[in-house]
C-alpha cells in the first residue's frame, strides 16, 4: 500500500463525503479519514436537511436516502413564558419529489453518504483522528505547502497531492493552516438537543400529520435569560427538541444547557407536544454562528476547506442550515481539487476557483444576503423585548373585552411598545435590518 494518495479528505460528515465522491468518481485515489467508529457516529444537528444539491451527485437521492419525514409543515413561533404566536405554513407540494426539507438522523444520513463515497472508490478509514498537517520540507513549518496529514495512529503520516479539510466546526486543520484570522467565543453558539421517543401515531396526531409528513417548528424566545432560539422537529417515532444558545450568556448565567431545554420542554406551548416522550439521546455541538463575519480563507497551498470547517453554516433565527452548505461546498472543493491536480497546480492560486465558485452560487450569496441576520436575531431586543411585545399585542387584539369597545391596533402597538421599553428608533432600525436580510 503506497503511503501517498491523490486526495485526503478529513471528516466523513456531509462535506467530506461529497468531496470524496466527486474526487473518487474523477478517478483520483482518495482516502477519507474519520475519527468516529463509523461515518456520522458522532454527528448531531437539529434535524432538517435540504438536500437538493444532491440531485446531481445522486440522482433521485430521495428514493434511497435514509429519511425520517418530509417537512410539509413549517411553523415559526414567538414564545414567552405564557404566550405563543405562531405563523404556521403547510403545503402538500413539499411532500412530493423533489421535496423541500427532510428530517433524518445524521448517523444514518452521513453513513449513507459515506457509503456512496466508498462505492465511488474512496477508502474510508474510521477511528482515525487527524492531529495535524504535513508541510513541504522546502517551506517553513508554518508556511510550507501542505502535503498531507498526521494522524493519531502509529506510523500515522499520510501524504497527498491535496487535502480537503471537512473536519467540522472549530476546524483544527483550518486553524493550523492559519486560515482563521481570529475566532472568538462570540462567533459560536452551542446547540443542544434531546431526542424523545413517542409512538408514531401519537406524533402524527399531536402534530397533525400523516404517513411520512413532518413538522419543523422554529422558536424565537423560550430560552429564558439566555439569548438563543429553539426548535422542535418530528422524526418517525421520535421528536427532537433543542435550543441554540449564545455561549457568553450561557456562561454568565451559569446555567447548564440541559436546564434550558428543560425550561423549553415545560413551556405550555411545547409540553403537550412531547408529553410522555422518553429521552433517548442528549447531545451537544458547537455551531459557527457568525457567518461571513468569521469565515476563514478557504484555500491554502495544497488545502481546501469546506462545510462547517469553513464556517459555512447559516444560522439566522428562522433558518438553521448547514448540511446543504456542507454538501455544496464539499462538492465544489472536490471539483476544484480534481481540476487543480489534473492541471498540476495545487497552490492556493491553483485552487482559487473554489472561492469564486462559491461566490457565484447560493453558498456565499445566501450568506452575504443574511450577513446581518445572526446578530439581529441574537440581539437583546429581539430576544428579550420583542416576543413579549408582539405576543401582548396579539393577546389584546384577539381579546374580546366587552363592554370595552375594541381598541385599534395602532393604539395597542404604541402602548405595548412603551410598556416593553422599546425605543421607536431601535424598532425602526431593527425592522429595516430584518427587511434587508429576509426581504
Amino acid at each position, binding site marked *: 500500500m503506497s503511503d501517498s494518495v491523490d486526495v485526503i479528505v478529513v471528516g466523513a460528515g456531509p462535506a467530506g463525503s461529497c468531496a470524496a465522491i466527486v474526487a473518487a468518481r474523477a478517478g483520483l485515489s482518495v482516502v477519507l479519514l474519520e475519527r468516529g*467508529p463509523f461515518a456520522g457516529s458522532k454527528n448531531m444537528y437539529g434535524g432538517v436537511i435540504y438536500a437538493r444539491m444532491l440531485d446531481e451527485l445522486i440522482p433521485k437521492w430521495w428514493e434511497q436516502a435514509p429519511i425520517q419525514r418530509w417537512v410539509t409543515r413549517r411553523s415559526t413561533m414567538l414564545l414567552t413564558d405564557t404566550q405563543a404566536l405562531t405563523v404556521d405554513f403547510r403545503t402538500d407540494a413539499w411532500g412530493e419529489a423533489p421535496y423541500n426539507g427532510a428530517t433524518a438522523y445524521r448517523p444514518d444520513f452521513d453513513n449513507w453518504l459515506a457509503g456512496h463515497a466508498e462505492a465511488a472508490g474512496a*477508502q474510508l478509514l474510521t477511528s482515525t483522528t487527524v492531529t495535524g498537517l504535513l508541510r513541504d520540507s522546502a517551506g517553513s513549518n508554518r508556511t510550507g505547502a501542505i502535503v498531507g496529514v498526521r494522524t493519531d495512529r*502509529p506510523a500515522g503520516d499520510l501524504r497527498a497531492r491535496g487535502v480537503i479539510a471537512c473536519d467540522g466546526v472549530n476546524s483544527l486543520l483550518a486553524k493550523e493552516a492559519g486560515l482563521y484570522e481570529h475566532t472568538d467565543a462570540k462567533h459560536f453558539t452551542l446547540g443542544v438537543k434531546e431526542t424523545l421517543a413517542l409512538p408514531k401515531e401519537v406524533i402524527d396526531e399531536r402534530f397533525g400529520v400523516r404517513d411520512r409528513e413532518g413538522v419543523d417548528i422554529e422558536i424565537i424566545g423560550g430560552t429564558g435569560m439566555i439569548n438563543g432560539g429553539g426548535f422542535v422537529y418530528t422524526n418517525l417515532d421520535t421528536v427532537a427538541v433543542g435550543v441554540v444558545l449564545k455561549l457568553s450568556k450561557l456562561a454568565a448565567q451559569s446555567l447548564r444547557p440541559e436546564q434550558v431545554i428543560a425550561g423549553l420542554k415545560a413551556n405550555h406551548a411545547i409540553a403537550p407536544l412531547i408529553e410522555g416522550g422518553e429521552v433517548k439521546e442528549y447531545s451537544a455541538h458547537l455551531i459557527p454562528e457568525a457567518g461571513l463575519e468569521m469565515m476563514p480563507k478557504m484555500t491554502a497551498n495544497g488545502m481546501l476547506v469546506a462545510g462547517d470547517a469553513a464556517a459555512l453554516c447559516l444560522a439566522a433565527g428562522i433558518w438553521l442550515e448547514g448540511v446543504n452548505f456542507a454538501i455544496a461546498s464539499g462538492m465544489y472543493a472536490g471539483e476544484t481539487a480534481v481540476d487543480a491536480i489534473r492541471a498540476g497546480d495545487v497552490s492556493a492560486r491553483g485552487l482559487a476557483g473554489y472561492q469564486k465558485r462559491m461566490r457565484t452560487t447560493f453558498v456565499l450569496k445566501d450568506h452575504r444576503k443574511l450577513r446581518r441576520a445572526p446578530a439581529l436575531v441574537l440581539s437583546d431586543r429581539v430576544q428579550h423585548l420583542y416576543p413579549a411585545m408582539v405576543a401582548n399585542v396579539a393577546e389584546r387584539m384577539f381579546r374580546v373585552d366587552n363592554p370595552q369597545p375594541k381598541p385599534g391596533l395602532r393604539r395597542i402597538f404604541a402602548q405595548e411598545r412603551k410598556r416593553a421599553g422599546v425605543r421607536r428608533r431601535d424598532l425602526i432600525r431593527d425592522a429595516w435590518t430584518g427587511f434587508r436580510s429576509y426581504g
Partner: protein
Amino acid sequence: MTVVVCLKWVHDAAQPDDVRFGAMSPADHSALELALQCGEWAHADVTAITVGPAQADHILRDALACGVRRAVRIETSHAVSGADVAAAIAAVVADAHWVWCGDYSIDNGSGSVPAFLAAALAARQALGVIHLSFGDAPTIDAGVIEATRRLDGGRREVLEVRAPAVVSVEGATAHLRRAGLTALRTAAAAAIEVIRIATPTRVDDCVVQQYRPRARELAGPDGVSALARVLSLTGAGGARGAASARRTVVLDPLDAAGRILTELREWGYRT
C-alpha cells in the same frame, strides 16, 4: 497454524440497538493483544477467528491491522450455543497450540466458549486470567506461560500452562496496541476467509418476562432479635421493599456514629 485468537462481534453496551457500534469486547481486545504477544514470543503467525455475521468482518479487519496474519469468519446458518461455537472453531483450528479468548462476551456470555473449546481441542485451560507472564520459548510448543486467575473470595490461583492450551483473559489484562495507518489501509482492502457451516435449528423453548429476583431463602444473622429476623425474612428476595426494617433518622454526628456502629453489630458485621 499455531496461535489463535477468538473474537466475538458484540453490540455496544451503550448502544445495544445500533449494530453499527458493534465491536469486539474489551476482553477480546485484551485477548488479541496477548495473542499477538504470544505470536512474537513463540515466533508464530496469529490467526483471528470469529463465528458471526458479515458485519463481524470489521473486527477481523481491526485484528489484521493490528498484526494478525489470517482472518477467518465462520458463518452458521442459525444462532448457535456456546458449545456449537466452540465446536465450529475447533474444527477449523484443530492443530492450534495457543488459543486466546476473552473471559466473557458482554452480550449474555457465560464464559463457557473457552472451556468448551479446550475440551474440544483436548487442550489445557486457564480461564479468567488477570495477569500473565511468558517464560522462555525455545519452540512454539515447549514454552510455558504463568497465569494468575481469580478464585472466589478474593483469592488468586497461579497456573503453569503449556501448549496446547486455551487461555481466557479479562479486559484489563492487556491493552491492545493501536494499528498503524498503512496496516489499517491494507487491512481495509484485505480479503476475509469465510467458512459456512450448516447448523441444525435448535431453538430453546424460551419465555421472556420482566426480571424479578427470585424469592431468597435468608437465614437471620446470628444474635439478632426475633423481630429483626421476622423483618429480614419477610423482606426476603433482595427487593428493598417496605418490609425491610428501613429507618430514616435525624441525628447529630456523635449519635449518628454511635447508631451506625450499633446497627453494624445488629446486622452481624461487628461483634
